[in-house]
């Protein structure tokens, strides 16, 4: 069934009548990134105004692949379980060359995690769930649809905005301006910031098809199928995903010399889909023809204006690193901005968002550019090498690993960042937490659900954890006067070891590890993670 794009209501903003008090945070853009940002801040008691020039969710499925780490972040924001329930879970990818399977990979071969490697869920559902979740914070989240920012000026200690609405224009002031206004960011354009990188010449057709019969054939379990030289399409590649509501995503590489307007028509698309699914009845739900870019800003933090998500960086879609990268931006910035606004940290902590997420987005761009290069050979020699890899892959494991149809989104390792205190442990400082099943006083739970959202000391051993101001504690397989849980199936001990104490950031990254419960080094590591100079 086609999604019902009900418009969000517009209400007349108070600023039209009289100047509003300066807001702590204004968020420009009510897509997945802007909405997640508002919820993250609200959960920490920080109020924001969200401005969007539109009043409907994403038209078309757009971002559909949500990675495990993103789901864990969405769990902290209160929408993870709803997304998991609606989404199509998958973890296996298969690569074909012509009719033959050349390589399959399992992205989450081990049990003991709340969330799977990936779910597929249309961006419009993600935005709907986030918008509904935002309604849980009526005093802290003020979403204003059909409010278009036409100008902004950074005054050093605040940002002033001009906004146009159906009822006229008004001005607004905020301590911080978060530009979550997407790949075509008007904020970025106003500031004339260079947004440079690699543009790929190939056109790709993206189609959502609704059909009852699965095009995965006898495979009941949804997977990610990728073809090099597909038998049903005269082009270099094709990609197939399942989405909820019996909608299938089909990506077809069209080559550099096509007319995108002509290709994105029912007359041109229908025969292409029939070539794949045969005479099975189907309905075209959405289609679009794209060229891809990999590009980013040099800096994401420009004094009081901070870029988050696609406004800061764009990637080709192979690897699902766009939306997932943006949600990691939110996760990284939320606790830092809240700490600064609450006076728990000073403004330089925000600079660490710049350092850590420029690093993360560079990694995403590197991986997605390599994948796109592999599947779109630019010369006969590149095509020759690609085909040599595919032909060797049938027999040789090393060649299978060279096949690149997208290196799927992985959480970013922040080991090099100054917020972390170097140390050695099964999970080293900089890495994001690995989930583990637990049982507690209220029954079964998960480590990530218990630990994320605040600085937390955690151990899976017997050492008692010291009481330190502003740091939560979680004990695993011990009894104490702070929350304690029993490990299930030994996963927590295996993943964290029994003789280490971990200090976790609110975004679930390990920031320090300790062998003993001495308070001084823990306090020093906590101060360092809040940006104190070291």
């Amino acid at each position, binding site marked *: 069934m086609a999604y019902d794009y009900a418009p969000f209501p517009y209400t007349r903003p108070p600023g039209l009548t009289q100047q509003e008090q300066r807001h702590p945070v204004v968020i420009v853009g009510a897509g997945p990134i802007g909405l997640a940002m508002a919820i993250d801040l609200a959960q920490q008691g920080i109020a924001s105004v969200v401005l969007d020039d539109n009043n409907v969710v994403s038209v078309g499925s757009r971002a559909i692949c949500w990675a495990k780490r993103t789901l864990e972040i969405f769990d902290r924001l209160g929408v993870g379980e709803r997304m998991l329930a609606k989404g199509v879970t998958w973890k296996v990818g298969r690569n074909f060359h*012509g009719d033959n399977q050349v390589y399959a990979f399992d992205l989450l071969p081990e049990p003991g995690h709340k969330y799977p490697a990936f779910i597929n869920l249309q961006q419009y559902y993600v935005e709907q769930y986030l918008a509904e979740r935002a309604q849980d914070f009526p005093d802290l989240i003020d979403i204003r649809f059909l409010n278009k920012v036409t100008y902004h000026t950074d005054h050093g200690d605040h940002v002033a905005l001009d906004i146009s609405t159906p009822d006229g224009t008004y001005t607004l002031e905020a301590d911080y301006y978060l530009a979550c206004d997407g790949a075509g960011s008007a904020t970025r354009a106003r500031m004339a910031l260079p947004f440079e990188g690699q543009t790929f010449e190939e056109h790709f057709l993206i189609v959502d098809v609704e059909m009852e019969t699965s095009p995965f054939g006898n495979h009941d379990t949804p997977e990610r199928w990728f073809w090099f*030289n597909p038998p049903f399409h005269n082009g270099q590649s094709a990609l197939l995903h399942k989405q909820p509501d019996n909608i299938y995503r089909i990506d077809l590489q069209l080559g550099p010399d096509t007319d995108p307007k002509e290709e994105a028509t029912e007359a041109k698309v229908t025969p292409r889909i029939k070539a794949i699914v045969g005479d099975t009845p189907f309905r075209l739900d959405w289609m679009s023809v794209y060229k891809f870019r990999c590009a980013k800003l040099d800096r994401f933090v420009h004094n009081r204006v901070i870029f988050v998500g696609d406004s800061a960086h764009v990637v080709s879609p192979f690897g699902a690193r766009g939306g997932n990268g943006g949600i990691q931006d939110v996760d990284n910035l939320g606790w830092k901005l809240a700490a600064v606004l609450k006076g728990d940290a000073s403004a330089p902590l925000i600079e660490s968002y710049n350092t850590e997420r420029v690093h993360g987005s560079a990694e995403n761009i590197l*991986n997605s550019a*390599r994948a796109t*290069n*592999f599947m779109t050979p630019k*010369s*006969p*020699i*590149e*095509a*020759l*090498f690609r*085909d*040599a*890899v*595919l*032909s*060797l892959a*049938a*027999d*040789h*494991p*090393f*060649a299978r*690993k*060279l096949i*690149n149809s997208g*290196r799927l989104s992985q959480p970013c390792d922040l080991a090099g960042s100054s917020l972390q205190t170097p140390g050695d442990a099964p999970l080293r400082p900089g890495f994001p937490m690995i989930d583990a099943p637990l049982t507690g006083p209220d029954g079964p739970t998960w480590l990530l659900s218990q630990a994320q959202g605040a600085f937390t000391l955690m151990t899976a051993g017997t050492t008692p954890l010291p009481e330190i101001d502003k740091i939560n504690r979680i004990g695993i397989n011990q009894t104490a006067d702070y929350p304690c849980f029993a490990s299930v199936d030994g996963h927590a001990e295996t993943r964290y070891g029994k003789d280490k104490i971990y200090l976790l950031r609110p975004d679930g990254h390990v920031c320090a590890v300790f062998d003993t419960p001495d308070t001084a080094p823990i306090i020093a590591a906590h101060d360092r993670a809040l940006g104190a100079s070291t």
Partner: protein
Amino acid sequence: MILDDKLGSHADAFYNALMDCHAGLTEAQSHALNARLVLILANEIGDLAQLEKLLATARKTGSPEFSGS
């Protein structure tokens, strides 16, 4: 013979470097580069018995369906 994976986590970086090495060359120049590369890598391996096995493996894999598409 089945070849072990020795590139490990560097597989993508190597492939990228190989493509960069060919960037801007004509097809004939690229074939000449490949020939030089084979000879250089053979010298690095050094062991004739091993090289003969690798030559046979490469020859066996090549089949008409995979030639230049």
